């Protein structure tokens, strides 16, 4: 276990599915240390592109008793990342100092094996760079000491209009993310594979309408 483990906590109770985190992520990471995040045919008939973060929508229940769940999904920075040991070149690694799972784009041979080894589909092979890309928690932003401290957060967290995305060290029991996990029943995705995701999700809550 690393001493520090940076992660996101995503509050499904307040996510409205606006995709602001998707576009701000794409904007920030298209340049900088992770960029470019290539698009193919962006304005043509069959556009496709590379993204670190997506917002998906699920319908739970049977009409008329249904609930819409907007579900942002990005790399979960697992404590036991199955994508790391399978990498034949060592390009895929988990940073000892803060637990971020990263790809060294100069070592990646683009074999795609790490993507096979990720149950969450968090990795995408860049179609023009031909190397594997994934969420870096905006590593070039959160560690940039030229930015004011309040701005040293992932682009998705800065962009979220409902504060559905929290960022911090989940190994520090007093951090905002640890408190949220503790007090709001934070849970992991696909716990059956024992990947121990660092990113956690906060469940939706029942709110009675006042009459």
């Amino acid at each position, binding site marked *: 276990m690393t001493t520090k483990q940076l992660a996101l906590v995503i509050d499904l109770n307040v996510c409205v599915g606006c995709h602001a985190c998707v576009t701000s992520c794409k904007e920030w990471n298209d340049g900088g240390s992770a960029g470019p995040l290539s698009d193919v045919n962006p304005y043509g008939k*069959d556009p496709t592109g590379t993204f670190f973060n997506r917002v998906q929508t*699920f319908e*739970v229940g049977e009409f008329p008793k249904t609930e819409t769940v907007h579900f942002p*999904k990005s790399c979960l920075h697992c404590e036991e990342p199955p994508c790391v040991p399978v990498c034949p070149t060592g390009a895929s690694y988990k940073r000892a100092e803060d637990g971020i799972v990263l790809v060294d784009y100069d070592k990646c041979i683009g074999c795609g094996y790490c993507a096979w080894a990720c*149950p969450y589909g968090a990795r995408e092979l860049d179609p023009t760079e031909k190397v594997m890309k994934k969420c870096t928690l905006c590593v070039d932003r959160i560690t940039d000491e030229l930015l004011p401290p309040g701005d040293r957060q992932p682009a998705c967290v800065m962009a979220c209009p409902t504060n559905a995305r929290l960022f911090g060290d989940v190994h520090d029991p007093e951090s905002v993310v640890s408190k949220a996990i503790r007090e709001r029943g934070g849970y992991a*995705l*696909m716990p059956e*594979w024992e990947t121990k995701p660092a990113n956690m999700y906060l*469940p939706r809550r029942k709110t009675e309408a006042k009459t």
Partner: protein
Amino acid sequence: MKPAWSVILLTTLIGAAQGLFLVVFVLDVFKSTPREFILYGCGMSLLLLGCGLLASFFHLGRPERAWRAVSQWRTSWLSREVIVLPAFTAGVFLYGLSGSKAAGAVAALLCLALFACTGMVYACLKFLQEWRSPFTLVNFFLLGTASGITLSVPLAALFHPQLAGPLALGAFALGALAWLARIASLVRNARLRPKSTTASAIGVAHPRIVQKAQGFMGGSYNTREFFHGRPDLLVRAVRWSFLLLLFPLPGWLLGWGGGSLASFVAAFVLQFTGLLAERWYFFAEAKHPQNLYYQAMS
């Protein structure tokens, strides 16, 4: 999963190469075997290994960096495979050149190690339940050796005719065994229940959850790499054709084809075609849990 032709060719070609080498070496150890048979057997094995290796490069986005893949042998079965494959190729080359049984023995050990590495590349991925089974290793070994011994029959007919009969019998027996083991793995996989569900994927405990949008409409790496996108009918047709081509047809040619060189060549061609179909199905059959997140466009 989407079947990748580079990997299909790699695994089938090197499997046959490994099987052929093993047949030649085992014969050399236990029977007096003419030099030509060893030479041509090793030559054919090297040709297949070369073609397999070449095919594997087409799987890489950055093939010029492939040398880096030898570095993570401590943790990665793929890295181990990348080391053992050229080592085994060198072993076959030395054995073919020198005829030394010691070199052959080393190559034989590397051959078995290569079967283990190739199988474990797939069997070690625990959430690909179709692959996570001893059957993956058994099938790679049996199908490789079966195709190798089938290939040795026409070679024997050319360079060592009195061995063609016994080898055809061996190819028949090994083909039958490989075929039965593959059927057993199909039965096993048909009974699998996926461990992950949409409920565990998004962490909402409800029996009825339907995806309404995956966040984009234009497709992505996730929708291309993990779905074969072929109709069920085609997948089933591939299954039935490889079940016919792996053993019943070549087995019939080996046993009742009149013993001509043409029938032996045809037996190998049919079986190898079946092997390509089998490997295609091996990928198509595997359901990746990430697909739970990509069920509906919008």
